């Protein structure tokens, strides 16, 4: 790496996510093997899909014997947010080489996106190469541990005591990421619209309610920002 300092800063930002990645990956390993997938298939999910929420949705629908097309459409809908992350990262990482962008895309998980975008937007100016180094630093502890934890869960699954609220590791990490992002009125409005929207549109099938809520929230945030800067310019 040309900029080891940014890589290690990212690495340090990625470490706390292990608190989530390890239990989450292990739980996936347990759930997938209990659903009837063999070890290769369970690992295939975590290595090829590398997206916890969508993997859980897919396995759940497989257990319910849903048609393959519905399984794919629903779990891809859960992952549609990745396209938004991709668009959001493009202004920052668009100027690196194409194969580097192909690698960044493979490792585009919630934690990598959230930690990187927080750094890019709140920290001092960084070059595209420094931004890449930071991003790769974040994913270095996170992604390999996702595979290892899945393997551990699949092999040692029966040892985890039942009834522990491990599922809640996910909201806790996300809250730790979101709260520091609420630094302007526009960000707060976007978050509120997202929360209200997802509840209002919860009747929409295939997880599309979240997408509708997210689009409305983006429009709300952008509009509040535009109004405030218009007033400030006056």
């Amino acid at each position, binding site marked *: 790496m040309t900029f080891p300092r940014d890589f290690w800063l990212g690495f340090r930002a990625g470490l*706390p996510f292990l608190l989530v990645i390890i239990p989450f990956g292990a739980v996936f390993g347990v759930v997938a093997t209990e659903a009837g997938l063999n070890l290769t298939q369970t690992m295939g999910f975590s290595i090829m*899909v590398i997206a916890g929420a*969508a993997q859980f949705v897919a396995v759940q629908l497989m257990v319910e014997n849903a048609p393959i097309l519905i399984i*794919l459409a629903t779990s891809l809908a859960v992952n549609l947010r*990745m396209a938004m992350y991709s668009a*959001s990262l493009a202004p920052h990482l668009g100027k690196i080489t194409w194969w580097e962008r192909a690698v960044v895309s493979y490792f585009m998980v919630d934690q990598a996106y959230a930690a990187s975008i927080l750094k890019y937007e709140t920290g001092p100016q960084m070059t595209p190469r420094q931004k890449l180094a930071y991003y790769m630093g974040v994913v270095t502890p996170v992604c390999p541990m996702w595979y290892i934890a899945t393997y551990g869960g699949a092999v040692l699954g029966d040892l985890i005591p039942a009834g522990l609220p491990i599922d809640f590791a996910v*909201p806790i990490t996300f809250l730790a990421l979101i709260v520091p992002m609420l630094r302007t009125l526009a960000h707060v409005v976007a978050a509120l619209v997202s929360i209200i929207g997802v509840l209002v549109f919860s009747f929409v099938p295939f997880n599309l309610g*979240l997408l509708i809520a997210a689009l409305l929230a983006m429009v709300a945030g952008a509009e509040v920002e535009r109004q405030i800067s218009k007033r400030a310019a006056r």
Partner: protein
Amino acid sequence: MTLTNTEIWLVILGLGAGSYLLRLSFLGIVGNRDLPEWLLRHLRYTAVAVMPGMITPMILFPNATGGQFDMVRMGAAIATIAISVWTRNATLTIFGGAAVLFALHFLIAA
């Protein structure tokens, strides 16, 4: 589960390929071109637009309790927000939130 091995691999490969294309979409296509200001202004709110909506149902109607509201999870969520506002530190927040979660779990549920 009644899916055959081939069908299971179809799901894994289809979901893997589809997810990768979603991740590559803008980053791969847009590349060096500059995006218009109105689009950038919307994209600045992607994270705060997606993530709160994603976790709201997990906090209010957890799958693990069959969708039933749960004081343990609600309490842990409120504590996590408070710790984050107070410490402004992601690591402390995650540790603190997890500590409150397990403390409430053993106090209330057990």
